[in-house]
């Protein structure tokens, strides 16, 4: 479904992503991990059309989507969330999600019904009429997912959706993501919370200095010497702090 082939993204002299490849099928949950500044979000931005890669191609659903605009890519069925949440603050939660639903329809009633469906899937029905800016951080993170879900994606890119959540909240979101995947939506997640990646992902890709240093099942990744040196060791020291 998603085929990323050797993408390169440079900013001036800095190579943020170098020769990165990845493939995803229907219903897959793949985790993308790596230390801060490893190029995870940059890779996301290239895939979702926010950056044009210096080299390499991105194919989605059998189509070359390299260089397409984000809105075109969204309409093809690839939706993303933002690491730093970007709610439409002045609008209600329902309106936020309706804007996502409008990607598939011009009709207000249909958009509203789809939005309500997405809100229910995220357990946010009660919050529909609230202004998005009044939501606490956990609510905003969920709103990001609900909005993206309302665009009816086949592939969902989740950029650190669980960062900053409390443990119980994280568990809820993990459960929701699992349900989405059961509906046949493929999921690529960037995540720092190792518990999340380990419990959700069937496959993990590790980025370091913009390059892929490992790929495999979670159980293999945690034993990988290179990964431990580059990343997992750092996580432990983070936790110790």
């Amino acid at each position, binding site marked *: 479904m998603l085929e990323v082939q050797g993408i390169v993204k440079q900013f001036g002299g800095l190579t943020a992503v170098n020769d990165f490849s990845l493939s995803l099928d229907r219903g897959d949950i793949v985790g993308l991990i790596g230390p801060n500044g490893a190029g995870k979000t940059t890779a996301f931005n290239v895939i*979702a059309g*926010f950056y044009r890669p210096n080299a390499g191609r991105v194919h989605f659903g059998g189509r070359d989507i390299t260089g397409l*605009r*984000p*809105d*075109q890519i*969204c*309409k093809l069925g690839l*939706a*993303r969330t*933002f690491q730093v949440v*970007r*709610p*439409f*603050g*002045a*609008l209600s939660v329902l*309106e936020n999600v*309706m*804007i*996502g639903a*409008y*990607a598939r329809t*011009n009709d*207000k009633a249909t*958009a509203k019904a789809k939005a309500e469906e997405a809100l229910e899937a995220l357990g946010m029905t009660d919050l529909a009429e609230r202004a998005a800016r009044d939501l606490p951080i956990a609510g905003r993170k969920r709103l990001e997912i609900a*909005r*993206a879900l309302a*665009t009816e994606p086949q592939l969902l890119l989740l950029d650190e959706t669980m960062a900053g959540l409390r443990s119980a909240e994280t568990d809820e979101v993990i459960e929701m993501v699992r349900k989405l995947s059961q509906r046949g939506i493929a999921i690529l997640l960037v995540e720092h919370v190792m518990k999340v990646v380990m419990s959700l992902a069937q496959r993990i890709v590790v980025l370091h200095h913009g390059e892929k240093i490992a790929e495999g099942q979670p159980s293999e990744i945690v034993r990988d010497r290179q990964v431990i040196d580059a990343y997992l060791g750092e996580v432990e020291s983070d936790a110790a702090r």
Partner: protein
Amino acid sequence: MSAVKKSASSLAPTAGPLGRLWHAIWADWDLMQLAISVLLVVAIGFAPLVIRSPYYLGILILAVLYAYVGISWNIVAGFAGQLLIAHIIFIALGAYTTVVLYTRFDVMPWIGIPASGVVAAGLGLVIALITLRYGLKADYFALFTIALMVALKTLFLKWEFVGAAVGMGLRLNEPSWEKMIFSTKEPYLYIGLALLLAGILVQFWIYRSKLGKYFLALREDEAAAAALGVNTSLYKTLALLIGSAMGGIGGGYYMMYVTFVEPPQVFDLGLNVELVLAAPIIGGLGSLLGPVLGALINKPLAELIRGTLTAGRSGTTLIVYGAFLVISILFMPRGITGLIQDGYQRLKRRRAPERDEEVRRGNA
């Protein structure tokens, strides 16, 4: 049986079509704003029964024009968040189009005014294309529109065909409906009100539709909008097209009312503030009611200040008027509509528990 019926009717004390309409409006703040706007239009429609003085009617006519133009700017700046500061260029271009068509080509204003909308939209499209081509963001876009106004002023000052520095006026021979020339003020008022009513309805329709929600998404966060499938370039262009076309039409009507136009008068930031920006800002930028409410306060107030304070001392007007604008921005960031909305929501909350109580009693 009859007891049940009684309690049911007390549950809906305002049954009947009017009562139901009122309930529907009361429940929905957008509809509330629409209803207040339409009521204001109707009230102004009856004003000539009370106001006989042509001077005061003239102020009212301009207030109606300000409200309409305010709506056209509100859609671009308030909804879509595009800092189109020098919106006056579309009004100016509309005024010139109407007068040129009228005096040079004998086209009557009923056609000339819509044509002004088309010409202004043409300029709107050019602005949109340049803006997108060079990726002008927010403040740079604002500066670009101001620079364009200055350039157009110079162009019109030199352009003989449109009267150059002398300007252009209507030949005021016989008053007639065809030529939209009247000897009394009332017909101008009613044409203006028709325009305003159309503007109010268009604004409401946009706000409630996909188009309007996409505009709001652009204003709130462009990147998030793009990620959700909003073609940001297309919708920015649409916002500019709608705003400029409506502005051009307003300019055509302005021309017919003031009967004379010259470059320094219309390509002017002072007039831009008073005619375009003040009403939505005072009334509440981005709201449905703001431009209408703002214009009805802004225009009479501007006249009052001009009439009382400035006798002989030019410049005082601008200082006092400017101070008023600054104060209203500082203390009412959401405008008068914001204050009304807060009051409305407080009332609504106070009424809601009562209704719950009634329901409970009804069920018992």
